[in-house]
């Protein structure tokens, strides 16, 4: 009697321990899925697609795992320990591995992503059926299903609450991955101890378990350095200035004599070839306007466009409207950057206004001979509005009678439909357009559009010192080769925002 009671008690303890491990196993399973989804959203954008496809692939893989579990016939406990260790290692390193792979451009990222998700899913799918079969000997089936599944769901619940509130914001994705890897390894070690009497090859498993823990703990400790290193690869060069403003993240890098500016990780210029971009932006429009006195620059807080504009002695006043005071402060104070923009932001002819361009245009009545609209590419709905017909009508109200405006309009090669959408939109606003393009090695083939109430003729000569443009080559820039030639495009209206949608789909094919 006494022996039986003792046996029952130990069996109950064992059951409890196994159910606790079900809780942890389920928690880890959901965590890997959330980490993969969040990482894919972070790196690739479009989180609905990323989450849906990651969840789908993961659930499917779990199904595959469950099905495969029937082929595990002997030594259930040993297999369970092995699977736990494999899940821990694979799941634990998924976030770190994917992040590094993305940064290092190692292999097709999506293949790696879904490969990892699938592998982890299969292993997680194997876990629960195995636990159920281990417990089957001691517990009635209906009781077994009820208990195992309720612990399974409870574990998932715990993580689904902890992940967004605590883990992702405080630990970060990479470190969270290692943490759950460690939990899986701990479950394996615990199982080893619980079943120490029933296992044959204990020593090997124990060694594997301890080394997994060591590797994962090392990963956990080094996650910070790993992230910095991978970000370093994304930027490639030394970061000489980094700043988070209410509007964007400003990063300036330098490698030998190449200075680069990144806003929200998008390259804005490389000092190697920015003169090509800015000469092409300003001079084809302004060179022939001897009557021009007043110029307005929207965006362009780096001061390069202003540097080009100030080359003309007839220009008396330049107004620069840039949203972010941190940008204009940086480019008017840092000596390296002041050298690059010829100290344009400190010119007495310049007035800097840190305001929202649209608000400022609505609140002021000033008219300008030349307006430069150098906004970021239309990658969001709020920026897309700055490329819409009503916005161009607003700009037109600020054009002097013979005035002209120029718009940077993304790449007619990589985003051909987008470029011609901007042309169609300017025309819808009642302007005559003159689209042109120039090669800026850092960006590729880049597009600009001149627009005004009058037809445009390219300048016969340039009177100011230039490194890139000549009158002859300028005339050729208005020709579009067949692969960039005009396509039919819908007008970008506020209620359809076709430009943002088009732009996103076109660039998605360019950037992996």
């Amino acid at each position, binding site marked *: 009697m006494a022996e039986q009671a003792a046996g029952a008690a130990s069996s109950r303890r064992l059951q409890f321990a196994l159910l606790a491990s079900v809780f942890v196993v389920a928690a880890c399973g*959901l965590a890997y899925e959330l980490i993969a989804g969040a990482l894919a959203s972070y790196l690739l954008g479009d989180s609905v697609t990323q989450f849906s496809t990651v969840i789908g692939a993961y659930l499917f893989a779990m199904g595959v795992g469950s099905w495969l579990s029937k082929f595990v016939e002997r030594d259930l406990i040993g297999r369970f320990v092995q699977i736990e260790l494999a899940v821990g290692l694979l799941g634990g390193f998924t976030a770190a591995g994917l992040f590094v792979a993305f940064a290092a451009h190692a292999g097709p990222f999506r293949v790696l992503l879904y490969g990892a998700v699938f592998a982890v899913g299969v292993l997680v799918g194997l876990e629960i059926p195995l636990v159920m079969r281990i417990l089957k000997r001691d517990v009635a089936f209906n009781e077994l299903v009820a208990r195992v599944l309720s612990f399974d769901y409870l574990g998932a619940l715990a993580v689904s609450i902890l992940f967004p509130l605590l883990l992702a914001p405080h630990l970060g994705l990479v470190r969270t991955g290692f943490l759950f890897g460690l939990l899986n390894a701990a479950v394996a070690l615990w199982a080893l101890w619980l079943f120490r009497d029933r296992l044959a090859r204990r020593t090997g498993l124990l060694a594997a378990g301890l080394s997994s823990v060591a590797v994962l703990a090392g990963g956990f400790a080094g996650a910070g350095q790993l992230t910095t290193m991978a970000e370093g690869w994304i930027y490639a060069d030394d970061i000489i200035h980094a700043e988070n403003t209410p509007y964007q993240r400003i990063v300036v890098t330098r490698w030998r004599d190449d200075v680069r500016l990144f806003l929200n990780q998008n390259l804005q210029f490389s000092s190697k070839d920015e003169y090509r971009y800015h000469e092409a932006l300003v001079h084809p429009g302004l060179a022939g306007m001897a009557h021009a006195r007043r110029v307005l620059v929207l965006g362009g807080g780096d001061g390069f466009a202003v540097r080009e504009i100030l080359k003309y002695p007839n220009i008396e006043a330049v107004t620069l409207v840039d949203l972010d005071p941190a940008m204009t402060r940086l480019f008017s104070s840092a000596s390296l950057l002041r050298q690059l923009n010829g100290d344009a932001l400190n010119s007495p002819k310049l007035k800097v206004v840190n305001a929202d361009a649209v608000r400022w245009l609505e609140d002021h009545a000033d008219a300008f001979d030349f307006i430069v609209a150098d906004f970021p590419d239309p990658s969001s*709905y709020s920026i897309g509005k700055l490329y819409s017909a009503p*916005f161009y009508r607003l700009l037109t109200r600020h054009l002097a009678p013979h005035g002209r405006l120029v718009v940077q309009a993304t790449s007619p090669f990589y985003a051909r439909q987008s470029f011609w959408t901007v042309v169609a939109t300017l025309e819808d606003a009642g302007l005559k357009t003159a689209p042109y393009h120039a090669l800026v090695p850092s960006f590729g083939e880049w597009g600009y559009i001149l627009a005004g109430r009058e037809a445009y003729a390219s300048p016969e000569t340039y009177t100011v010192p230039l490194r890139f443009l000549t009158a002859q080559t300028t005339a050729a820039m208005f020709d579009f080769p067949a692969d960039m030639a005009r396509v039919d495009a819908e007008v970008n209206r506020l209620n359809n*925002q076709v430009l943002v949608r088009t732009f996103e789909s076109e660039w998605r094919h360019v950037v992996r």
Partner: protein
Amino acid sequence: MKRRDFLASCAALAVAGCGEVKGAPLPPGELAGGNLERGHRLREKNFARPTEVRRVPVLIVGAGIGGLSAAWRLERAGFRDFAILELESSVGGNSRYGENAVSAYPLGAHYLPLPTRESRAVRELLADLGALQGDPHAARPSYDERLLCHAPQERLHISGLWQDGLWPRLGVAAAERDQYVRFQERMAEFREARDGQGRRAFALPAALSSNEPRWRELDRITMRQWLRDNGFDSPHLHWYVNYACRDDFGVGIGEASAWAGIHYFACRNGEAANAAADSVLTAPEGNGWIVKRLAQRYADRTITGALAFHIGQNRRAASADFLLEHENRVVRYEAEQLVWAAPLFVLPHVAPELPASLVAAARAGDHAPWLVANLTLAEMPSSGAGAPLAWDNVLYDSPALGYVVATHQRIAAAPGPTVLTYYHAFSAEPPKQARERLLNTPRETWARQILADLGRAHPEIGQVTQRLDVFRHGHAMIRPVPGTIWSAARQPLARGWERVHFAHADVSGMSLFEEANYRGVRAAEQVLRRLAVRVGTALG
């Protein structure tokens, strides 16, 4: 996907719970709404005698969309001799609006769908206001791009993620999606359906619909019954149709008449040259932009804070006695014709001589109360995972209807502070009970509930909300339950009461802008005919 839904809702509950427990100080704000004391003063009936009689050819009582549309129609005919008296301190009725340093915002109705082919007066009104360009009756007119809702128009928070559009897609099984398609096909059939005389089965204004029993019979059953009878059992489809009914009628599918529910999906046939057919017209102040423009025109003839407590008529004139709050006295208005553009249930209380048939008609039907809260935010709410912030943002598992963003139509490079307008129709309990709850619950309780509801999708909402103003509509919308819209008892309302003409959406049985406008314009045309002013009709 059951497991995931379960987890998502558990997480949501937990997060909502945290929001409550944390006990961050509530943002300040006001509890406002219709002036109850002024309105309920009617119950006391101890008014002084008039100290002055003012004569005016036409008197309009009520300055909601019905009253303003009547005034608009009179002026279109060159007739300017009218006075508008309004109970509340500001005009606009359900389309009132507010304004603060950040933005104007709606206190009620927040959009107008592209007007149907039959909404001729609405089209002419929009053309008059410059919102519709070219021929107002063209199949596809152009609309002012500043008013057409900017993209993205709407999104839905479901299973912890935002998706584009309001038809639930995330985690919805293929069989349910098949029902979506079948449902939309049925609605398209109803949209095209006409009777032998060429009248549409479901027109807007509803009065222009066919009177054939095969369609009117649908007013005898509930929308849920119709869905079941027709093999629609998808829970997500039911959710969507229920949402639509709560949003437009203040009643869910368990109570809304099937005629009304189908009308919602089948009546709209408006198109635009420069927008998709499902576009809507909106402004920071919702439909308040129309109120603002019309109210300016009639400001010299409008008196607010005017409580009508006695309406009568004899062979020479109609009369209305008002307690004028600003003058603090009682004045009698005598008019040749009177347009009653206030809710109809008030009429039996103030018109002792109202014939029994009209008393019964005015009392048929009750009203759903609404709560509209405006949250002033220091910054745009975080977009959250999934589809980016839209104009209309709906939460799947919410008793409320979601929120619209007042600054959505603003063209700005950087998102700044904003105002979110949060809507809650009390559709889950009897209207009287809901009204009592609405009136007896302090603002702080609503504020806590609203922040917890929104906190499920925007965890930071408590921190970024600087003000939370609650606006109560006690009798917001007539409830189109079965037997309301086409009941024989309510038909006398359309004919009016001799010199008194009814210009309120209550007459139609559905509280829609187009119905209020139709009733207002129709009443004005009846008035003009009585005054022997030569008029055509704006109603087609």
